[in-house]
């Protein structure tokens, strides 16, 4: 199970913020991510569909200098939340679609 950015446009201030909008026919409210949320987004985007949940978790843990198990459940639920909003996709889903 690998993660990738969905059909979205997104900006990155290269500091603390990522702003995202889904490229749906009806304009949605933009989603703002800051702090660790923005960091997770960048990790997934740079991974370009190659990173699993465990790999994203390890990258986040490394970036914030904590043990992976400390952030594992939060990272997983964050990824699933963005998937439910249509902002991230699982690569196996994207290729099936």
């Amino acid at each position, binding site marked *: 199970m690998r993660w990738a*950015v969905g059909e979205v446009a997104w900006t990155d*201030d290269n500091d603390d913020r990522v702003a995202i909008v889904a490229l749906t026919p009806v*304009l949605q409210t933009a989603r703002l991510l800051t702090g660790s*949320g923005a960091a997770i987004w960048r990790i997934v985007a740079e991974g370009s569909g190659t990173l699993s949940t465990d790999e994203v978790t390890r990258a986040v843990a490394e970036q914030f200098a904590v043990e992976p198990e400390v952030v594992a459940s939060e990272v997983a639920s964050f990824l699933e939340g963005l998937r439910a909003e249509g902002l991230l996709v699982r690569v196996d889903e994207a290729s099936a679609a």
Partner: protein
Amino acid sequence: MTNTAAALRANEAVELLHAWMQARARMLDVRMLIIKGPGLAHHGLRAKRTSSDVDVLVHPDDFDRVTAALATAGWKRREGSFAADRYTLHSVAFVAEEWPCDVDVHRYYPGFLTEAGSVFDDLWARHETMEIAHLDCDIPGRLSSILILALHSLRSKASDPRHASELEAMLRTTRLDIQEKAELAALAMSTGSAQTLATVLPKLGVETPREETESAALREWRIRVESGATPTYMWLTLLRDGEHGRLSVLRHALWPSRADLQVMYPGLPETAGARFGTRMQRFGRGVRALPRVVGAVVRSRRG
């Protein structure tokens, strides 16, 4: 896990909307060019700055389809004043809830005097892509962008010092080789902007043949450039055209309705005194601008 609901910044909103509009046009299978804004900075023609809105140009045949799609997507036409609704024919502005900038959809671009569909085809034939908000977006090529920036700046430089300085900066910093000069001359001729930009192109080393006769559209352009984007010019144009009932135009010009005042001055207090004071100030500004506008009309007719 931080996830904030903080307000979207203007630059974020503008970038995201450029990309969303591009994606929407592709869904509709419509050719659309993102004009002004980030493309000008991309070509080095203007300093990078956050645009206040999103400007797009579509083929006139696609205009209704694009604007209908925006309405379906939850966008609303920006409420305009009596005069603006009747005068601004080249574009329609849309607003969306929670988004701090407009989207202006252009069916043609003022100053290109050739038939609008042909102009769009010429610009599209030279279009390029640039990444905006991580999406490849279609923008006019560099030479097309020079024409658009020059027309945009000329049209309102008399009343907006920023546009005048942007034009000066572009002329100061832009260098064209021989082939580019020839291509720019050809593009200006084919799009009908050689004469509207007759004061600009020679400063870029671009020579185009001068036309012997002045068309009505060219005369109108010259009056507009000399008058600046003043409301007085807009009112006089509506009065002269006579298409909207001269008495009605005159009444709105001299004594704008309460609704018009709210559109023109969004922060105006809802009191009779504030409305009266604003109407009188506005009248004074109109009277002061009148000589320049009338002078431009007279000079144009003599010329």
